[in-house]
């Protein structure tokens, strides 16, 4: 045997992405060299993706001690209390790297994974949102990725029977070789249905439910998400994970029946690191141990090694802990729903996770060590040099701009134009909860049988965050809060997905830590708990880091729900138009105007004030109960916000005394209110700027555009790029 062959047969720790120091830690924990399967387990569990080793020390800055938080960060999903025994489970995740390798399956398995996180908690998943970021659509490969990802979300989400309520989308050059595919899901449950993942009860059984285990993404997703990409890496990729929404649908129904009949002690979904992760978390989390027999695992392929079985990331699997008395009944439920089930382990008093294969011991490690003893890094963070250069590139906005011409350009932008090309492919109506559908600022879902409703908005703003990670991140939180407020809900809880470049670069780490500070500060200002999150590092390809892209999912809550919640299509002739909120302050950094008209990205975004945010957001949530049209002002400023209302309502507007530049200013914490009457009852600053009338958007001396023309441009922005 040549030395090369020896190396192939004995993968060393470096090939598994583990440093020498980390390997020495494993030896210290075990008191010996690890066996092959053990090394495989530690390498995946201690990967960046599973262990958050570069970010964990920063995440404690997020607060989640509000009284309505039932489950904070650390479990599969955060859970908050809506009163009367109703709970909501929510979570956000990323599937960035898998979606670049295979966009359809990458996005599809992302949806599948997040749904399991939700129903693991005992909740029925009722909605999904997908915040997406791609490179510019004039490049064919970006269109291919975008089309594939949207089809994958639709294909999986529609078939599994959970509505997708939208999301948001950005297009920018830095995402060309590293698209961001985030996914948020939300579930609903009664308090007595809540299930956690920590096992109890020595002698209880661990039952593996769902798909057979194959060589899917062996060492894949987690390793994939823990290192940067180089050109040509695609061919070296491990097996692509293939999603099966039909299996997931059966798994959801089977698990919900198990909870309903109180047949499980604990349950955990299988995601990254598969059986390794699920068994160690279930056992370690409960301070217990487990004996696992890999021969009992139902396999899709013969001749899998113990390491492969332990690390397989085959989709649509769950690990349930049940008492021996309930085993037969659990297996019967699985049979009814036509899913496979195998009893693979027994809970012990601990602390070790002991694994057998073909009668031989292949692993014996302290269960909790895989998670608790993972390395923690305090990575160097340094303010990057690019900031001074970009701040110096101040946006220029001429006083005499023609608003009609600017709108012609802005409404044609694929991130501003009509996004129904995307969400029209998603089933967004299933379950009869959807009161405000995609295409508005926030989604609004009723909870049948109650007066309660929940609202959700997902938001990111990578360019603004690039210009100032702290201010940009804080503004994302405020914008998301305002988006739920204009549906009538108050911000109630938040999950975040932190997409960044290579954390081993001090500039990227600085962006990260600044962003965490900005998000944490804004959430505290609004008294919004951060109940969960995800960190996706190494979003770097060929040495180019993505724009720093924190993405938040804001949950809003209202009781009662507005009888007739505001919509963009409810403006009528003679209604008055008000601009409400903070004074316009000349904020064009990272604005749509600067990006599209000037082809520039520069200047420093304005800082948002916490007290103003609280007042404006509260005012919007109150007005939503009596005003027919409310619309947050964000991308493209007041001008685009008014155009969207005019297009959706099919009616024109006469706007007075607003200058051209003020129409495209992106000062935060402002919204448009439209209603009959001459007075708007609210204690935040507001002034009437015009009237709904005619069939033209008339900005006086600043210019005009007919609603028909604006609509044509707006509706075609995505189709004309995708369908040629």
């Amino acid at each position: 045997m040549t030395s090369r062959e020896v190396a192939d047969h004995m993968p060393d720790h470096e090939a598994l992405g583990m440093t020498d120091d980390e390997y020495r830690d494993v030896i210290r924990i075990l008191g010996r060299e690890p066996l092959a399967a053990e090394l495989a387990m530690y390498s995946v569990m201690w990967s960046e993706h599973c262990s958050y080793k570069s970010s964990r020390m920063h995440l404690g800055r997020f607060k989640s001690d509000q009284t309505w938080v039932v489950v904070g960060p650390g479990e599969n999903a955060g859970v908050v209390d809506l009163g009367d025994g109703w709970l909501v489970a929510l979570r956000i995740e990323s599937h960035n790297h898998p979606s670049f390798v295979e966009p359809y399956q990458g996005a599809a398995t992302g949806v599948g994974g997040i749904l399991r996180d939700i129903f693991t908690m005992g909740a029925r998943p009722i909605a999904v949102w997908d915040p997406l970021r791609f490179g510019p659509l004039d490049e064919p490969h970006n269109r291919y990725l975008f089309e594939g990802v949207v089809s994958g979300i639709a294909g999986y989400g529609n078939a599994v029977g959970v509505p997708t309520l939208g999301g948001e989308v950005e297009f920018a050059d830095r995402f060309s070789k590293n698209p961001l595919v985030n996914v948020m899901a939300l579930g609903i449950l009664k308090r007595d249905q809540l299930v956690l993942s920590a096992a109890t009860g020595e002698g209880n059984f661990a039952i593996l439910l769902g798909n057979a285990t194959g060589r899917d993404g062996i060492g894949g997703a987690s390793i994939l998400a823990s290192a940067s990409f180089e050109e040509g890496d695609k061919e070296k990729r491990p097996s692509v994970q293939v999603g099966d929404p039909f299996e997931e649908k059966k798994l959801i129904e089977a698990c919900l029946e198990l909870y309903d009949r109180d047949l499980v002690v604990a349950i955990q979904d299988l995601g990254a690191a598969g059986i390794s992760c699920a068994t160690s978390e279930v056992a370690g989390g409960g301070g217990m141990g487990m004996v696992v027999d890999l021969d009992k695992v139902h396999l899709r392929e013969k001749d899998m090694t113990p390491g492969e079985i332990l690390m397989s990331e085959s989709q649509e699997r769950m690990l349930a802990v049940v008492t021996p008395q309930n085993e037969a009944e659990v297996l019967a439920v699985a049979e009814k729903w036509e899913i496979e089930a195998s009893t693979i382990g027994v809970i012990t008093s601990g602390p070790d996770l002991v694994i057998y294969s073909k009668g031989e011991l292949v692993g014996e490690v302290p269960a909790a060590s895989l998670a608790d003893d993972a390395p923690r890094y305090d990575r160097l963070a340094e303010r990057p040099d690019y900031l001074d250069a970009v701040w110096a590139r101040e946006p220029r906005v001429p006083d005499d701009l023609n608003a009609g011409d600017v709108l012609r350009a802005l409404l044609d932008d694929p991130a501003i134009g009509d996004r129904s090309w995307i969400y029209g492919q998603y089933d967004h109506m299933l379950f009869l909860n959807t009161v405000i559908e995609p295409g508005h600022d926030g989604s609004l879902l009723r909870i049948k049988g109650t007066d309660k409703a929940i609202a959700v908005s997902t938001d990111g703003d990578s360019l603004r965050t690039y210009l100032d990670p702290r201010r940009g991140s804080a503004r994302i939180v405020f914008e998301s809060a305002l988006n739920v407020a204009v549906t009538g809900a108050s911000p109630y809880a938040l999950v975040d997905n932190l997409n960044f470049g290579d954390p081993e670069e001090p500039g990227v780490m600085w962006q990260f830590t600044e962003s965490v500070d900005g998000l944490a500060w804004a959430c505290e200002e609004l008294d919004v708990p951060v109940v969960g999150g995800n960190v996706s590092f190494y979003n770097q390809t060929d040495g180019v880091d993505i724009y720093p892209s924190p993405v938040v999912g804001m949950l809003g809550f209202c009781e009662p729900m507005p009888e007739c919640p505001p919509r963009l299509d409810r403006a009528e002739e003679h209604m008055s138009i008000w601009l409400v909120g903070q004074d316009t302050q000349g904020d064009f950094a990272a604005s749509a105007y600067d990006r599209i008209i000037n082809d520039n990205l520069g200047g420093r975004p304005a800082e948002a004030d916490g007290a103003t945010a609280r007042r404006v957001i509260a005012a919007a949530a109150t007005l939503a109960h009596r005003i027919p049209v409310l619309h947050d002002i964000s991308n493209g400023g007041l001008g685009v916000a008014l155009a969207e209302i005019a297009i959706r309502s099919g009616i024109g507007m006469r706007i007075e005394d607003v200058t051209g530049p003020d129409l495209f200013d992106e000062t935060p914490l402002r919204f448009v209110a439209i209603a009959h009457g001459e007075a708007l009852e609210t204690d935040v600053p507001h002034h009437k700027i015009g009237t709904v009338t005619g069939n033209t958007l008339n900005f006086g001396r600043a210019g005009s555009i007919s609603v028909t023309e604006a609509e044509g441009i707006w509706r075609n922005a995505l189709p004309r790029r995708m369908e040629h």
Partner: protein
Amino acid sequence: MTIAVIVFPGTNCEHDIIHALGLAGAESEHVWHRDTDLSGAHGIVLPGGFAHGDYLRTGAIARFSPIMEEVARLADAGVPTLGICNGFQILCEAGLLPGALVANRDLKFICRPTHLRVESTDSVLTRAAEIGQVLRIPLNSYEGNYVADDIDNVENAGDVILRYSDAAGHVDSTTNPNGSTNSIAGITNAGRNVAGLMPHPERASEKILGSDDGMALIEGFVASTGLVDA
């Protein structure tokens, strides 16, 4: 038994249709596809979803589910039977309705409200509606494009009950969302007791959801079961 709502693995609109039937005053219950007894059912609904994952061909595996023999027996005996979306596809695949549903013209899933013009009131679904009435009901499907090898027979027999139109009831190619032959959205059988449609009337069952036009159809169906006075 009241109205039987058949549940296949992969069905996902089974709760929504029970909600809408309830709004029309009817009680209904889920029946698992492996069951074989529908005796006493006054009506049958095959709801939407992705029975058996829509694998192989939509409805192809579901038509062999054990319950389908019983569905066919009752349908032949005149029991009101309704297929919505995937349920419509299964009824076609099972031969209880003529034709088949194939992929949409643009090869994209379509989820949006559509307008439907009532073409005939001679069916268990449209009996409470009026000819020419326009209903706003959401469509939600990838394979919603209706085809039939002898479309003239279907038309001449008066089997077409609903067509895609605009809000004014005008029907042409621009009002056809998915390429369906002759803009057909719903059909009935020769006995007029079996009906299928691609749009989801249960999703237009309350004003707060955007439209309650679907209740005109649901109420008609419930009335045909005799469970509620028409």
